[in-house]
Every structure is written in structure tokens, then in C-alpha cells.
């Protein structure tokens, strides 16, 4: 156990945790925006898979990482258009259409990969960028301020999303159509338009999450996310629909995963117990929520399509 509490290992664990948390955080923040407007999207995983594939393919073909990030975002946006039309205008049941999007993304990303790439080929990964001055802080600098730009972006988006939701008119609209769409409608807020835009934001962030995942790994293979998008949805509930809480959830989940891996590498967790140790991230997330559980109410109109009476 002593070996774990050396600075270099702790720093590496923190760095692992942040890398693992980045895609969760981006996707969860997006899902938070959507849910605050009253729209549940269970299709995050499918969106992430599609954007991850297209990002990967872009790097493979052009070598341009920033174009790849942009493509990931754009694929998220397109999927957002699709999901928005289905849920807001066609008023399809959200749970089921989300699962439809998931299955579609799972299959199509796999098919595209088989058709356009075939065998996994490595591509360039997102480079780490040192933040001047901060990255020179002993140990802490290496853990926190020598990361890639999408990671910084994810964490910057936490306060940005929080401010968007609480301090802007648009944020107020989002929350009001999520809580009481009839009242919002009677005050002249377009429920449909507000939700549609919230969905676009949410899916774009899921798209960024897919890009972040694949560009951190530098490789794609079928079902790359392994259900990551569903965990991201779960973390929204962990964070009680607040960006800061969502960040807490993503970091906790990433940190437990990273710690388990480092303990395995150090032999602190014996090989024979490794499956039991693998339960830790999920179990601890539930336990943490039991401890900090407050009576939070979901956005009242969550999953309910709006029809003007």
C-alpha cells in the first residue's frame, strides 16, 4: 500500500482519472442541458460512437486533429437535429427513441468502420498542452495542467454550462420549459424551439465527448465506448442536474477506475480479485449518492412531450 502513496504514482493516478473523466464529463454536461429542458436522451452512447468514428476517420484521412474535433462536434449536431425532430416535433417517446438512436449509432459506426477502415490503424493522439506557469507547479502541475485541450475545454464548460443555465435568459427558458412548459408557453417562450436548441447543445457535446475519447486513444474499434454514454446519463442523476455535481460524478467515477488500475499494476489488488475490484467504480458511485443524497426533484416535465392545450 505504501507504494501507492508516492507522489509520482498519485500524480499519475490523478492524470489517469482526468483522462478517463473527460469523455464522461463532456457527455454528461450535454445531457444535463437536455434534461433541464425536459428531454431525456438515452442515445448518447450511439451519438458518441458515430462522432468517435468520424473523428477517427478524419484524422486517418487528413491527419488534421482540429478538423477531427470539428467533425465530431458536427456529427453530434446532425444527430441532435435527428433526435430533436423525433422527440420535439414528432413527439416520440423519449426513452425508446433514445435507445433507437443508440442501436443505430452502434450499428452504423461499426458498419462504417468495416467499410472504410477495416483493420484498426493507429492515428495521432491529441497532444498534451502545458498551461504556462501552472504546469510548473510541482506534481500538481503535471497532473492537472499538462493535459490536452479537449480536457481543458471539458472543465471550462462546467462553469460555462452552469452560468448558461442560471444566469442567462436562454438558460431560464430551458429550465422553465423543463419544469412547467405550459406556463412557459403562456409567457411566450417557444417550448419547441427551446427544447430543440437544448437538444442540439446536448448532442454536440456528446459529439465532442466521442471525439475526445477517440483522439485520446488514437484508435477506433467497433463499440469503442462500451456503454460509456449510459454511464454519462447516470452521472447526470448523480450530479442532480447541476454541472458542478456532474463534474463531481465524472471525476469520482474516473478516479475510482484509475485507482483500481494503479492498485492492480502495483499488485495491491491481487489478480484473483480483479473482477471484484472492477465493481468498485459502480458500487462507490451508488454509495456516494446514498451518502450525499438530497431530496432533489427531477425537472418536472422530463420525458414528457409538450402539446399545447
Amino acid at each position: 500500500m505504501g507504494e501507492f502513496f508516492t507522489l509520482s504514482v498519485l500524480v499519475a493516478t490523478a492524470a489517469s482519472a482526468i483522462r478517463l473523466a473527460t469523455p464522461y464529463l463532456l457527455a454528461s454536461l450535454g445531457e444535463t442541458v437536455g434534461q433541464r429542458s425536459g428531454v431525456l436522451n438515452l442515445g448518447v452512447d450511439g451519438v458518441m460512437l458515430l462522432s468517435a468514428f468520424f473523428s477517427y476517420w478524419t484524422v486517418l484521412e487528413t491527419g488534421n486533429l482540429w478538423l477531427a474535433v470539428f467533425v465530431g462536434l458536427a456529427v453530434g449536431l446532425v444527430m441532435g437535429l435527428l433526435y430533436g425532430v423525433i422527440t420535439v416535433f414528432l413527439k416520440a417517446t423519449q426513452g425508446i427513441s433514445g435507445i433507437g438512436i443508440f442501436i443505430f449509432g452502434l450499428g452504423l459506426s461499426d458498419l462504417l468502420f468495416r467499410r472504410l477502415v477495416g483493420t484498426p490503424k493507429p492515428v495521432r493522439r491529441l497532444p498534451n498542452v502545458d498551461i504556462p506557469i501552472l504546469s510548473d507547479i510541482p506534481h500538481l502541475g503535471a497532473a492537472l495542467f499538462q493535459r490536452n485541450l479537449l480536457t481543458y475545454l471539458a472543465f471550462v464548460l462546467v462553469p460555462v454550462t452552469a452560468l448558461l443555465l442560471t444566469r442567462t435568459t436562454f438558460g431560464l427558458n430551458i429550465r422553465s420549459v423543463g419544469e412547467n412548459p405550459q406556463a412557459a408557453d403562456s409567457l411566450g417562450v417557444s417550448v419547441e424551439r427551446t427544447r430543440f436548441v437544448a437538444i442540439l447543445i446536448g448532442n454536440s457535446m456528446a459529439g465532442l465527448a466521442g471525439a475526445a475519447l477517440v483522439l485520446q486513444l488514437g484508435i477506433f474499434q467497433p463499440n469503442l465506448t462500451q456503454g460509456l454514454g449510459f454511464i454519462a446519463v447516470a452521472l447526470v442523476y448523480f450530479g442532480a442536474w447541476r454541472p458542478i455535481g456532474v463534474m463531481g460524478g465524472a471525476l469520482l467515477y474516473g478516479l475510482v477506475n484509475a485507482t483500481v488500475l494503479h492498485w492492480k499494476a502495483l499488485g495491491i489488488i491481487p489478480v484473483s480479485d480483479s473482477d471484484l475490484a472492477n465493481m468498485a467504480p459502480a458500487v462507490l458511485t451508488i454509495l456516494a449518492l446514498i451518502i450525499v443524497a438530497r431530496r432533489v426533484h427531477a425537472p418536472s416535465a422530463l420525458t414528457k412531450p409538450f402539446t399545447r392545450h
Partner: protein
Amino acid sequence: MLKGVIGALVPLLAAVLAFAFGATMLVALGASPLAGLDAMLDGAFGSGSRIAATAVKATPLILVGAGITIAFRTSVINIGGEGQIIAGALMSTVVALSFPDLPAVILVPLVLLSGAVGGGILGAIPGALKAYASVNEILSTIMLNLVMVQFMNFLLRGPIMDPFELEAGTRIPQTQRLSDNAALPTMIEGTRLHVGVPVAIAAAVAAYLILWRTPTGFRLRAVGHSPEAARAAGINVKRNITLAMTLSGSLGGIAGAILVFGSEGQRMVTDGSAAGFTGSAGFNGIVAALFGGLHPLWTIPSAMLFGALLTGATQLQRVLQVPAALAVALNGIIVIFVISSTPVRGWLQRSLADSGLFNRSSDSAGAD
């Protein structure tokens, strides 16, 4: 009558549109769309044994779907089908390993029952957590799915692994072949149609009867309709939320037992993932339940259709040699299209009613 027919036709039209997309994809992959459709239909309904295979494929979807119905009707969103199936399978496997010599007439019901107990426990946990600790059930069920996969891997490569695997050094993570006395009897010789199919149908009927014909069901639905009103009426909301998740989980658990002792050849084996064992029935069951309008009885045909889609897809891949991913993408499109068409169907029905051709008001939505 005609209205009902049209109501049924619209989702069918959506499915046809989805197939049109599939056809486009097939052409792009260099295969004939007609041959594709033919292969799917042939795979799902081409012979007695294939129809039986479709029914077998639909069985866990019916059970999970019926369970989902109970939970959703109580306003509890159960996404833990995958974990509950695994829990039921593990529990029934352990029972079959412990009492291999019991006569079939006892052991078969016993493994089904223990499946229900295993799944019920895994449903009760998120139910109780929601009711008594305010832990959102979507979060806890998703997390418990992850936990159960690891627990399954742990058991199958450890405590309940086939001793032969250790001896031979192959260490395949599977149990020994389980007692034949626990095998679900085949109903029609030469097909895979086993007793699990009527069990699932009976379970769906039972779910219907519980929900709409018993005081328990009344309380569950009252909680689902409005917890505040239910509480005011003296209903114990917390206990009913836990009960709904327990019932829901136990149906998934029975599906797990049926997979082991009916569908997957009498032994439990893991490839390390949940879907490798469940075939994603925990998710597909949700789709089946929602297609069925969250009505346990409608879940049966809806699950059968989905089962046909899945077995047809296997045939499609084999006959046309196209990637399995095509069938997966196609299933996703079909789900999206059919679900998007529901309002269109409603609009059509209303238009027909408005036109004065029908004077009977819509009562089909009574269960909603």
C-alpha cells in the same frame, strides 16, 4: 374496426420505410435488397423450427418487457434488465449445481423460481434505494448492470467454474454442464420451442392481471399516477416502489433462468460482457414494452416482432455475407421510424374520426 387496421398499418408503413433504407444500404454493399428481405423473412418464419427459434428469441423480451411495464406503470424507470437477467441466471445456476439430482418435476420449477428470486433481489436493491435513500433508479440500475457483469465473470472463472477447466488448464469461464433434470422440456420435437415460451406468456398475462385486476396493482398504478395522491389515500408509496422494482426484476430473472436452461444449452458461459450472455434482451425488452404501449399483453406480439427482426438479421448476415453491423443499424432505424410514426398514427386516427366515417370515440388508449 377499420380504424384499428389503419392504426396497425402505419407502424407497418414505417417499418417498410425503414426497410427501404436497409435496401439502400444493401445495394451499396453489393447485395440485392429483395434477397435481403427474403433472407430476413425466411430466417424468422421460413420453417416451423425457425418460427420456434423466433419465439425462443422473443421469450426474454416478453419477460423483461412485462417487467418493464410493471415498473414504468409505477413510474419507476428500470434500465437494469441486463443485470437482472444475469442475477436470475446465476441464482438458478447455483441452485441447479446444488441440487442436481432432484427430479425434473421439482427442479424445473425450482430453477425458474430461483431465477425470479435472483432477479427480484437485483430489482429490489434499486427499488429500495429509490424509495428509502432517494437514489435515482436510472443511475443505480445502470451501475448495477456493470456490477453484475463483473460478478458473473468472477463466479464463472472462480467458485462455479467447471472443475474440468481448471484440471485441463483451459480455464474457460463456464460452469459444468448443468443437470439434465433442470432442462426446460422441448415442446415440439425437432424444434427449439421449449417450455420457457409459454412460461413467458403466462408471466406477461400474470403481470396484466396483477396490474389491472388486483388491489396490489391498483396501488402500484396509483403510485405511478401520482405519488402524492396515493400517499394521501393511505398507500405506502415507498413499499410499492420497492415492490414494483422487485416484481420487475424477478421477471427479468426468470428470463435469465430460461436462457440458461432453455435457450443456451444447459451451461452458463461468459465472454466477459453482458450482451454476450443476455443478447441485450435487457434493453430490447424496454423497446418491446414501449412498442406494446406499456401493456403486458401487447408486449407479447411486440416482442415476437422484435424477435423476428433479430433472428431474421442473423439469416440476412449469413445468406448475403454482409456485416452483422448492418442488421444492428437497421434495427435502430426501424425503432426510430416506428416510434416516430406513433403521433402520425394518432393524427391519422383523429383525422378519420373527424371525417365522420367513425362515430365511436377512441377507447383503445384506455390503458395509457
